[in-house]
């Protein structure tokens, strides 16, 4: 996966003016930055959902994605939604077993036969996460995957997700200090548009996040 010389504007606003970005191969790259600095747009470019005005996006294989919104099928159950993107070369029994374990790990197994309208925001978030983790992928895009989870649960979920990401190319967009520190191999900070990427030392994450929080509240 490689984004090169990306230009993208929305009306008058120039979001990217020749942006280069390559995530760590087979590792987790974390993107930090204030709201509105084009983190989600970067993921959408990587997923091929939007095209740059100029520049190139080299995709590497199949992409899986936890979108900013859950994007679940409202008329299907949690279990069905989680299984929806799985590889159909697997037998139904294998798929059920894998998803059962995953829902268990994400602590939503009890809700597996509920519909999206019947579950909380945090459960819907984890259903979307389960779907993305169960799908076959070479690159995984995560847009605030742990939002709307309470702090204790978030720590547990991050711990259980971590082994499932090893050896995969992952781009993680988050405001969450715990997740960024626990999961990332490389961390970048995005500036306000036109976006520049700055590499951030893992040790500086906390102070960096505090700074971003201050920027956000300004």
């Amino acid at each position, binding site marked *: 996966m490689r984004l090169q010389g990306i230009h993208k504007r929305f009306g008058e606003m120039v979001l990217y003016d020749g942006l280069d970005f390559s995530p760590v191969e087979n590792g987790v790259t974390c993107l930090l930055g204030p709201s509105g600095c084009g983190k989600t747009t970067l993921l959408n470019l990587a997923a*091929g959902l939007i095209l740059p005005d100029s520049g190139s996006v080299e995709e590497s294989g199949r992409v*899986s994605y936890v979108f900013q919104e859950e994007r679940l099928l409202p008329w299907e159950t949690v279990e069905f939604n989680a299984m929806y993107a799985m590889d159909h070369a697997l037998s139904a029994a294998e798929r059920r077993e894998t998803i059962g374990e995953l829902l268990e790990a994400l602590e939503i197994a009890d809700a597996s036969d509920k*519909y999206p309208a019947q579950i909380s925001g945090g459960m819907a978030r984890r259903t979307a996460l389960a779907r993305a983790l169960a799908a076959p992928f070479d690159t995984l895009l995560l847009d605030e995957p742990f939002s709307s989870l309470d702090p204790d649960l978030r720590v547990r979920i991050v711990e259980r997700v971590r082994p499932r990401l090893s050896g995969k190319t992952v781009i993680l967009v988050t405001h969450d200090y715990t997740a960024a520190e626990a999961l990332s191999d490389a961390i970048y900070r995005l500036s306000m548009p036109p976006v520049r990427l700055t590499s951030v030392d893992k040790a500086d994450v906390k102070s960096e996040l505090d700074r971003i929080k201050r920027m956000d509240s300004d």
Partner: protein
Amino acid sequence: MNSPVRKRTWIVSSAAAAVLIWSLASRIVGREILLPSPELTVMYLFHMFLSGETWMAVGLTLIRVILAFAMNIVVSLALGIAAGFFERAEYALTPVLTVMKSVPTMGIILLSLIWFKSGAAVLFVCSLIIFPVLYSSVLTGIKNLDVGLLEMHRVFRIRRTRMLRHFIVPSLRPHFIAGMMSGLGLAMKVVIAAEVLAQPKIGIGTMFQIERARLNTTGVFAWSLLVIILTAFTDLLFSTLKKRCEVRP
């Protein structure tokens, strides 16, 4: 204010008022051949129920409506989905739809009588009338598909058949049922009108024509009442179906 009881009270009162006005009017006119009374009409309707011919006519007309519906459901789904996803298909179908919507019903009926046998003519006319309604409902449904879910299907490379079954068809369901409901009343009317003119051996329209030829106005009223009851019943069926679709989360 909008409790179900109150709603029902209003519906029943309105129907009762209509019957009352009808009854008064028939008394004022005083001639059965011009305006039969409600009592006489209902009695005639019961008398009709005893005859096997009535049930045959109702059955065959309903079969024609259902057949026309079944054909048009398949065609309008296929063309509606195609037009929803491919603008060229939508543009290509626009003039066809404009003609179908604006051509006078009687004109189509007369033409189809020239072109087809009576049974086929009825089906043809009915299709011409209900296709635009069903097609538009499918097209509206496709245009209103959730963009986020569409993108989700693209990213995860979900197979088209799976997408059709688990995303598109369920998304279209409420639009399509609404289209079916408005199409059904229309279809009943048009099929009967076509039968009146096409005169298939058996059918509600044919019975209308026979009663008219006998100058039996009460018969014409009784058949009309029967059609109203049939349409109300199928409407009820569809609104129950619609409610069930909506209740499911």
